[in-house]
């Protein structure tokens, strides 16, 4: 049997030498790209979040139920916070996944750490998404409408 060696860059690579393809596909490249793209967007989203919540007006003292209700009465801030939640959680999860792969040497340890990580990520993303979209900014507590200029009169 003779082995044929293709010329470099011909694109005809024997399957066993192929870097992409196979069961993992190009997942790692996409993960690398995602970290950069989401990172740029997160800088804008989080710096905006910190400015509006901590630096404007009374800063942290203004934050209470009414403050959150006022923001989420507006679809703009609902979308802002939703994008921040998903991008930050996926960016952070992929970062921690990388760290687990780097430092956990035993196969079983890596597997279990990643199971715990992905479970936590799933719970937090679903919980946060539900909270943003099922939240009622104008709750009636003990028959009394909470004060808030954005709430209709009961």
């Amino acid at each position: 049997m003779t082995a044929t060696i293709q010329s470099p860059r011909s694109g005809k690579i024997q399957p066993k030498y192929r870097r992409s393809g196979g069961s993992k596909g190009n997942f790692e490249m996409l993960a690398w790209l995602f970290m950069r793209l989401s990172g740029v967007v997160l800088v804008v989203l989080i710096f905006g979040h910190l400015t509006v919540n901590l630096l404007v007006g009374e800063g942290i003292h203004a934050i209470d139920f009414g403050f959150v209700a006022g923001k989420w009465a507006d679809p703009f801030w609902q979308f802002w916070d939703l994008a921040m939640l998903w991008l930050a959680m996926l960016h952070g999860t992929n970062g921690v996944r990388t760290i687990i792969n780097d430092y956990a040497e035993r196969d079983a340890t890596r597997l279990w750490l990643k199971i715990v990580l992905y479970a936590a990520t799933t719970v937090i993303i679903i919980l946060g998404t539900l909270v943003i979209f099922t939240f009622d900014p104008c709750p009636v507590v003990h028959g009394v409408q909470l004060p808030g200029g954005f709430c209709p009169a009961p």
Partner: protein
Amino acid sequence: MPTKPAGTLYRGREGMWSWVGHRITGVVIFFFLLVHVLDTSLVRVSPEAYTAVIGAYKNPLMALGETGLVAAIVFHAFNGLRIIAVDFWKKGAKYQRQMLWTVLGLWVVVMAGFAIRHLSLALGGH
């Protein structure tokens, strides 16, 4: 006595320490994010529950913690942009060291501004 290999190993100096800093700040931010989604979720439980927990963020010790957290976020953000420049800009790898010092300079300026504003609000007469 064997001599240390010189200039053959990738270790030390700005490149490695910025990598270490990026990892540590990243992990810190990730664990805070988990807690922060949980505490914000209390708005769905009741206004009182949310206001009680968010009250914990308003004491002076937490104000220092928040400043530390923002310091981690600002470093991670600026150094992340530096990493993107190293990866995508033709001269990124050549100027990575200068870019790190730019990151640290911007970090000092932004954090000075943030700390003065946030601490005077958080510790001020309320």
